[in-house]
């Protein structure tokens, strides 16, 4: 585990606190002051305990430009998810079961573990692909209808639209 400077710890602590507070407010769905005070205390304790566990980034994540790209990413992802569902529905319903499965690989330019996790999760939910494993910077993807086994082209088809946005966020 890497050693953190005081500033990094403080940034992670505050970011954790903000996120946990948002989750608390969503769960209680009220702004009654007693609830808010208890929530602030509980989430402060939890974020103190989880400085090393639950965050990827420091406060710079709350930069408006990054937040804009996060919202953009959400829409890119939602579009891919809906296309993926209709794609699966088409394959499942059609009597001949049009599949040509196989496992392909490609390399990513993302550096941090957290961004690789987000990319792998997104790939799983996009049309016809399922991430089987990530070894270093190589992704192994099960593809329900293999169009190419060449890593570069597979990367262009599967991951490029997500990675472009993720590189701007992380």
């Amino acid at each position, binding site marked *: 585990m890497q050693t953190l400077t005081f500033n990094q710890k403080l940034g992670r602590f505050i970011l954790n606190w903000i996120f946990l507070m948002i989750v608390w407010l969503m769960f209680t769905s009220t702004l009654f002051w007693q609830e808010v005070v208890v929530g602030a205390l509980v989430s402060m304790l939890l974020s103190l305990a989880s400085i090393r566990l639950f965050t990827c980034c420091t406060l710079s994540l709350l930069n408006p430009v990054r937040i804009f790209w996060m919202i953009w990413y959400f829409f890119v992802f939602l579009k891919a998810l809906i296309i*993926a569902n209709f794609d699966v529905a088409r394959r499942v319903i059609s009597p001949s079961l049009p599949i040509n499965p196989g496992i392909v690989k490609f390399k990513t330019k993302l550096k941090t573990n957290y961004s690789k996790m987000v990319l792998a999760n997104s790939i799983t939910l996009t049309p016809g692909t399922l991430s*089987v494993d990530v070894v270093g910077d190589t992704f192994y993807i099960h593809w329900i209808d293999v169009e190419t086994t060449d890593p570069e082209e597979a990367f262009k088809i599967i991951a490029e639209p997500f990675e472009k946005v993720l590189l701007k966020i992380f």
Partner: protein
Amino acid sequence: MSILEIIGGILLIIGSIFLFLGGLGIYRMPDTYNRLQAGTKATTLGGMSLVLGVGILEPAWIWKALIIIIFIAYSNPISSHALARANYRRGHYPYIKSKDKKNMDAYQEVVPHTKEKEDKV
């Protein structure tokens, strides 16, 4: 009937259709990986739209519904990845339709095959 009830009802119907298609996919697909493909995608959108529909029908629950949606979006792909990886390492290799069997399975460079053929289903 208010407009919110209509939207909620439509979302419930869409969700149940996709969940049904996911179940059908699990029944029809030839091997574990393809079943996971159908299962994961359909249950993610199906579950999300069901929960969102419930949240819209009962406006007091909408924030909790949003939290559940975020949890589904995070945990569903992670569990399918874990299942697929464990399945491969256990020695159940993917069903491959095309003739070019060597190149179609790139993951065997990480986990070498210990038996000759993929599983018959």
